[in-house]
């Protein structure tokens, strides 16, 4: 995916499937798919217990809606032949997506692998609007977002669009996935407004072990995300894999040091966040920079995200789980540092340090374009949706928690005081499940 043109060129000379490549991408697809449940745990642990199911379902539901929409429509808009701005409709409904080789792997597998990226990118946005957005409007929002934002930007960078042809380097999705999701998250948080308790009372993570579990599983899945983006079981995959191994280590270490200097403690939530920021930052660079470059990149990427998280918490902007600081800023830092550390000898184009400052300009162009586009389109989608439906849960539901009001379930139910409704009775109690009905019935 790093270089679609190289792929197309390969298609001419190597029309055959390569079993080793196919095997690795099969595994990588499963690894990246696991990142969405991992994200659910990362996000779910960070919210209050009364909203934990809702928050986790916001990630899980993307597996269904975004996944299907990807296969049927968005894949074609991203990767089929079209204009420099958007792909065409030739692969709609998986038309022509068969077992014939695309590069050295089956076309169908390529579609599935790319689909896992679309799913997690949409799910990432949810972190900014948790604990207040109604569930169905959220599902409709991310579905529209996939078609209007993700598909075009993926096409620009990877599908043969205008950014890719200009030589913007984005190995595994720093721009397409992280800047895209991060900026959209910020805009969504601004359009929806802050939670009613935000800035008035402490809103604390309800399960920090979940956060650590999620961060660990994200790292595991990210080997498929970056290592798989070589689209082959080759040396580039090994480089991307190793850089994904090294960069978050540097971020974690620097994060621990910053935490200690500032508060006197190494914090668990901070450590988990540091790992994710490191993973985000190395994503665009993974197959282009040296291992030592990856360490430097990971360490440096800590600073902008760390301090923007501190700054954001003092503002009225309720990007609740700091998606913008983590993914938007982490992705931006990574995209720019790719232009600094990229080296021809490791498979990239030369960057600033190798005497090619122009690459930094290209990186800024790619980041800037998706920054502006994602921001504007997200604003537009939410404003239009806001005209035909209520996006936010009302104050009372927010107080009671979205688990009960949106899903009719509790995460940590004791069952005390619950009365079993027998099947024949529930037919009489015709009220839709999850909707309160009078006690007198």
């Amino acid at each position, binding site marked *: 995916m790093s270089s679609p043109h190289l792929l197309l060129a390969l298609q001419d000379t190597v029309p055959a499937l390569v079993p080793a490549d196919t095997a690795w991408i099969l595994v990588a697809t499963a690894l990246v798919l696991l990142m969405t449940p991992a994200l659910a745990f990362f996000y779910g642990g960070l919210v209050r217990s009364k909203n934990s199911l809702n928050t986790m379902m916001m990630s899980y539901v993307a597996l269904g809606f975004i996944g299907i929409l990807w296969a049927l429509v968005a894949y074609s808009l991203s990767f089929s032949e079209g204009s420099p701005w958007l792909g065409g409709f030739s692969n709609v409904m998986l038309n022509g997506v068969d077992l014939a080789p695309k590069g050295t792997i089956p076309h169908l597998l390529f579609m599935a692998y790319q689909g896992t990226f679309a799913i997690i990118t949409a799910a990432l946005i949810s972190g900014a609007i948790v604990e207040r957005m109604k569930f169905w409007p959220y599902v409709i929002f991310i579905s529209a977002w996939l078609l209007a934002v993700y598909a075009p930007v993926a096409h620009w960078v990877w599908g043969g669009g205008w950014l890719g042809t200009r030589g913007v380097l984005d190995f595994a999705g720093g721009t397409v996935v992280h800047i895209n999701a991060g900026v959209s998250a910020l805009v969504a948080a601004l359009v929806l407004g802050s939670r009613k308790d935000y800035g008035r009372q402490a809103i604390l993570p309800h399960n920090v072990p979940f956060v650590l579990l999620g961060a660990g599983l994200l790292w595991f899945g990210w080997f498929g995300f970056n290592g798989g983006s070589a689209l082959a079981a080759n040396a580039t995959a090994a480089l991307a894999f190793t850089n994904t191994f090294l960069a978050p280590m540097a971020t974690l270490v620097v994060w621990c040091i910053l935490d200690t200097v500032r508060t006197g403690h190494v914090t668990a939530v901070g450590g988990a966040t540091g790992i994710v920021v490191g993973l985000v930052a190395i994503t665009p660079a993974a197959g282009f920079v040296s291992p030592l470059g990856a360490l430097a990149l990971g360490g440096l990427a800590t600073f902008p995200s760390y301090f923007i998280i501190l700054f954001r918490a003092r503002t009225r902007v309720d990007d609740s789980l700091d998606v913008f600081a983590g993914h938007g800023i982490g992705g931006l830092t990574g995209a720019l540092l790719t232009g600094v550390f990229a080296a021809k000898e490791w498979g990239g184009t030369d960057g600033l340090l190798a005497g090619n400052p122009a690459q930094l300009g290209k990186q800024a162009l790619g980041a800037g374009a998706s920054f502006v586009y994602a921001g504007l389109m997200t604003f537009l989608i939410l404003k239009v949706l806001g005209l035909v439906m209520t996006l936010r849960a009302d104050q*009372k539901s927010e*107080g009671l928690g979205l688990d009960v009001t949106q899903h009719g*379930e509790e995460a940590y*139910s004791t069952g*005390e005081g*619950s009365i079993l*409704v027998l099947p024949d009775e529930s037919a009489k109690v015709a009220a839709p499940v999850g909707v*309160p*009905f009078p*006690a007198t019935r």
Partner: protein
Amino acid sequence: MNLIVAIFRPEKLNDVLEALYRADVTGLTVSRVMGHGGETERAETYRGTTVKVALQEKVRLEIGVSEPFVGPTVKAIVAAARTGEVGDGKVFVLDLAQVHRIRTGERDQAAVTPAVKIGG
């Protein structure tokens, strides 16, 4: 000298604590309890199992106060905990026979929220 027991919605706890702080009422105990105040019941479904949740989470606040503080305390709690919906809760005011402060051994008036408002 009275014991004020208030039972109200957990999501109103912060508002109540803030109101009490503003009313110079210090020293209280909070516990999480389950209760039912005639509000609409909720249905929850877990696969094939549907339940009516008859008991709701509430918080129970206990404060021992001296006579001049009874009115302000009750007023603060009622104003801060009210949403206007069924299930807002109750405030009970009970007579107290004795109060002992464990640390100093002080008794009764000396052991509850000060009889005279600070600065009053």
